[in-house]
């Protein structure tokens, strides 16, 4: 199940970045993928819609948000945690 979530997240981010999913690695940062602040807000919305979760994110203080957007690995971990919380 986790692999499915991970792949789906990469597909969503890749679509936003106009890249192929395999070009998105765990180490990729939003900046490296060419995702600007508005693109980030759009990506988070797409993830919320896909997994029916609410992601705590304020564009004014991205580093202080509980949702860590440092790179794809942290984003995937945070989404997986929110999906697990929803299931519990």
């Amino acid at each position, binding site marked *: 199940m986790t692999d499915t979530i991970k792949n789906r997240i990469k597909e969503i981010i890749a679509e936003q970045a106009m890249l192929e999913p395999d070009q998105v690695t765990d180490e990729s940062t939003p900046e490296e993928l060419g995702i600007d602040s508005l693109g980030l807000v759009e990506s988070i919305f797409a993830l919320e819609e896909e997994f029916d979760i609410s992601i705590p994110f*304020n*564009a004014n203080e991205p580093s*202080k948000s509980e949702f860590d957007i440092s790179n794809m690995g942290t984003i995937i971990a945070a989404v997986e945690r929110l999906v697990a919380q929803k299931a519990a």
Partner: protein
Amino acid sequence: MTDKKTRKKAATRKTAAASGGEARSGLRRVVITGAGTINALGHDVETTLQAFREGRSGISQLDFRDVERLSIQIGAQVHDWRAEDYFNRQQILLYDKFTQFTLLAAKQAVAQSGLDFEGALGLSAGVVLGTAGGGLNTWDENYRAVYEEGKNRVHPFVVPKLMNNAAASHLSMEYGLRGPAFTVATACASSNHAMGLAFQMVRSGAAQVMLTGGSEAMLCFGGVKAWEGLRVMSKDACRPFSANRNGMVQGEGAGVFVFEDYDHARARGADILAEVVGFAMSSDAQDIVMPSAQGAERAITGAMRDAGLNPDQIGYINAHGTGTAANDKTECAAVAHAFGHHADRLMISSTKSMHGHLIGGTGAVELLACIMALREGIIAPTIGYQEQDPECALDVVPNEAREAKVDAVLSNAFAFGGLNAVIALRGV
């Protein structure tokens, strides 16, 4: 005929030059002779100014249908608004809340000016207002009726109630303003664009008197839900320029002013609140949401140039100061660059910390703080200020109002879509 026209023109020029001193040939001086408002701080100008002096916040828990489904639940709402105190049943059916706010503010402004638009004056008087959402409550209520409640019929006045020009049209009808009348929509700069255009019309002689300002009533479920999506709203407070700021807080209300030809105002012995001396607008032509310091700076320097003011003559700026990370640092960079060394000597505050962000109506309510600075020598504070931000290293008049004599001031507005509008005022 031609002779007569030429003579009249020459005479006008002479008057403008004689009374204006610095007025450019053929241009009239423009003064403010009336002001009115309703917003979360008060239902009139004096209550609002008292809140500015005290540094009082109008931000609180929002109260309207379905608010529990919002993740942002604070705003500067006009809580004790009862339309039936001001309007009859038939008027309420026809006036969206943004029109109601406008009519109330205009009534105060016109009363203060002492003008009567009966007869010839009405023909050379008009109205230009700003709003971003227009009758948003009307949209919200009626979409709810047809989509959520499955109704197949809406009230016949839905369209005349929700249209963005409704408030301007009702003002023209209320006072018999038969000259130029229209509404400007430039998001958060709407009121400044409207007032700038009104200023240009009186200055050019296209109108003798203009009612101008703006209104917004976006605090309803759909209005706030839409803003939530951008993730730029604060859940707790509006703290412009503070390092720990975390977003904007929406407000609602209206501000309306009487802009009048100086000679006309003097001839009838009107009390003059301030002189409007300059206006400039610019477009970033860059990004639909991220602001540009260069675009803002061009509007700031443009307004000073239009006014014939040097940067060191500006004592106070009412900032756009939304409390978002992006706006406040960009605005400070623009001011620092536009003013050079003088940036360290001028005061700049954001009153949105008190009345919230009235979106299309915000510049109108903020102009009140500019008038207070010029007339009373009291600078409205930026409240909620807690931590210095090196990217906003200007004198933001933190938390407490300050006494200071200023001769000329600016009011900034920078909208989503990269549309900037800055107004310059001077004391009279």
